[in-house]
């Protein structure tokens, strides 16, 4: 045992090295560059002027930017909440199904996630636009007399985000709910607990790590979404991701774009720290491996 470990340790850097250098150079270095540039200034023609100031961050306090930042947080939070309310019954149902059927249900939840995100977003454009499927069907059925504009709104953006990230909520919820000891629930029934009490006092506290992990996995990509608001949102449903893209590719104000990115990163890291602490029981103990 000892021999194989000591034999194994020395050359492993030859295996790790290339990957670590690659990730360091292309992931860590660019993020650090972004941080540095967020303090730089913008040249007349869009270049970077190497100076130090907090102007870019102060600019973010401008009502125009503050509104987009606030709206992004609201949309992401709303998406997370919707995913939670929709995903919880599904995850609970899967966790209580016969073991063989659990696998099939989980696969069914994951399959849409593996189809192209662009295509999935386009599907909603196809359904929601004025000449789209929903309006056509409703007109034919006589529910409405004239088509209404459903696309290019915050509602459409939220539908798209929920659609995109629902599987991220269901999977960790399932993992947590599957571990809930059924005898606890039965004991509560025996003690004449109402359905609501069982849910609130037993299932929910035990599912908390799953809720935290699911919320993290939905909130982060929702907050940084670019494609969904770009395709489904209107002029007023811009989110942080669109703002970053706009500053980098359209306005060519890279330092400001970098500052917005750093702010987004700060939100992401903060959210991760919070929910990783809450989700700790979900991570299997290391002694297993």
């Amino acid at each position, binding site marked *: 045992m000892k021999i194989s470990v000591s034999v194994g340790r020395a050359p492993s850097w030859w295996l790790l090295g290339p990957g670590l250098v690659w990730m360091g150079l292309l992931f860590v270095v660019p993020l650090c560059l972004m941080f540095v540039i967020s303090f730089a200034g913008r040249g007349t023609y869009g270049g970077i002027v190497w100076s130090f100031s907090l102007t870019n961050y102060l600019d973010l306090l401008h009502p125009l930017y503050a509104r987009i930042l606030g709206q992004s947080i609201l949309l992401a939070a709303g998406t997370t909440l919707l995913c939670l309310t929709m995903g919880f019954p599904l995850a609970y149902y899967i966790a209580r199904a016969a073991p063989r059927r659990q696998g099939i249900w989980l696969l069914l939840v994951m399959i849409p996630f593996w189809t*192209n995100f662009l295509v999935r977003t386009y599907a909603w454009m196809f359904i929601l636009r004025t000449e789209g499927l929903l309006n056509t069907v409703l007109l034919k059925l006589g529910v409405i007399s004239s088509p209404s504009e459903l696309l290019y709104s915050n509602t459409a953006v939220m539908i798209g985000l929920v659609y995109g990230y629902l599987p991220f909520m269901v999977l960790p919820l399932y993992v947590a709910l599957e571990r809930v000891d059924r005898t606890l629930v039965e004991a509560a029934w025996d003690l004449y607990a109402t359905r609501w009490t069982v849910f609130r006092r037993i299932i929910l506290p035990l599912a908390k790590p799953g809720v935290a992990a699911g919320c993290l996995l939905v909130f982060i990509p929702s907050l940084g979404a670019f494609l969904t608001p770009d395709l489904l949102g209107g002029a007023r449903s811009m989110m942080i991701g669109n703002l970053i893209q706009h500053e980098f590719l359209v306005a060519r104000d890279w330092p400001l774009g970098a500052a917005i990115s750093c702010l987004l990163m700060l939100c992401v890291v903060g959210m991760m720290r919070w929910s990783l602490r809450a989700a700790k029981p979900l991570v299997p103990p290391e002694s297993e491996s």
Partner: protein
Amino acid sequence: MKQSGGWLWRASVANLFFLYGPIAALMLFSFNASRLSATWQGWSLQWYRALWADQALQAAAVNSLWVATVSTVLALLLGVGLAVGLEGLPGRRQRQIEQALLLPLVIPEVMMGVSLLLFFVLVRMPLSLTTVIVGHALFNVPVVMVIVRARLRKLDPRLLEVAADLGASYWGALRYVTLPLLRPAILGAGLMAFTISLDDFIVTYFTAGPGATTLPLKVYSMIKSGLSPEINALSALFVIVSMGLIGFSLLLQRR
């Protein structure tokens, strides 16, 4: 439990309907004869024929396949190296590095795209298909690592001890014991990485130079210039190819 069973089942089926309905509708209407894409006017394959004849689309498909192939090979080399190499580190260090390497999978993709763009411009590397390949190989390395490590954990550590007892060197054991056992996982990871690369839009969008149009970029510009049933047809193809590749990948990972 029985009393809430019916309600839970209905809610679950409604969820599935929500997840599958839009994709199914999209695919169905790719066979629609009508140009007005939401009114059904009979079956037709004309939109698929239109795709087949589209030269720009063919060029984009070739670009996509090239990017996916090269970036997958790169990601496999680096990712398998990381997965196997991490085993040789002490537990605590192993966990730290592994968690750090998972970060690219968690942060919003826009951040990765923009920071790569910034990096390429600052090191004066012109944007092209090469930069797209580098970007894809970046987010696919952690994907490969995760899948291969999941398989490594299930391997019997005694096999390596036996190999060492029989006088195998570290590289010998790796070559003749570990890698053959990991082969299904490596293939599965490769297929997964290949699919993710084919599907990727955001990192590609920020790192592609002029002329480096991949299929998702093409779909995006088609959507932006007005909806047409051809996009439905192309989307349907995307769905089928992704699902096929991923299904195959999962089968390999399960073995």
